[in-house]
């Protein structure tokens, strides 16, 4: 594709998709929507709360990995206890 082809294509594209007006602005003030978004975000717990203590998915995955490790390599128990 040479430069002439590119220019032709650019012109066609500009005909097909006109530029957005320079002074475009939202139809309404977006601050109330922003506040709703912030409220919804702050109401969301960072981790799921169950039985009175915080329990993130990562904690669960770590605990499961430890159980598997201990089940297959019981000899690792003293090493784990040492590092706890």
């Amino acid at each position: 594709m040479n430069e002439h082809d590119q220019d032709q294509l650019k012109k066609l594209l500009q005909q097909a998709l006109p530029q957005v007006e320079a002074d475009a602005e939202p139809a309404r003030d977006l601050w109330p929507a922003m506040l709703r978004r912030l409220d919804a975000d702050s109401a969301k717990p960072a981790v799921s709360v169950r039985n009175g203590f915080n329990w993130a998915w990562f904690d669960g995955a770590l605990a499961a990995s430890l159980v598997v490790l201990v089940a297959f390599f019981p000899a690792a128990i003293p090493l784990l206890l040492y590092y706890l």
Partner: protein
Amino acid sequence: MPNESSDVLNRFRQGDAFAFETLFHQHQRSVYGWILRIVRDPSSAEDLTVETFWRIYRAHARFEPARGFEGWARRIATHAALDSLRASGDKFELDTEAGGEIPAPPEADPAVSAEIRAKTAQAFRRLPPKLRIAATLAVIEDRPQKDVAAALGISVAAVKLRVFRALRLLRKDLERQGITP
């Protein structure tokens, strides 16, 4: 460009909600306008403006006041718009097919029929979002490549490459439909 004081920027960096509100009101229009240029749908642009400022609020600790707010906000806005285009790529195509007539620009070339313009617009919307954004901003909106590069977080050379790839793919698509630009 709004001229916010360094005090507001510093307070925003520290997580001050009032400083965030000030910056929101100063920049919502420019952020909206930038996003509208990319997604070309006022309703989506409004939602994405809120999404952008939400990301901005969450990232306040990473903001560097010395580098200014507008460029940083524009970069976050561009990525929010890119995520949206990736998530709803098919939707825009369907909208065009169902939408029918594409309005002619004020200086429309009479040699280019409405059908060709519609097919070109549809083919353009089929491009990968990453290429489409670069071509939208650099070719359709005629923004300086330096600004496009800054907004996308890539080099000017990468912008040129993306525009070239976008035009090449567009040309192939049009040729498949029997349109020779």
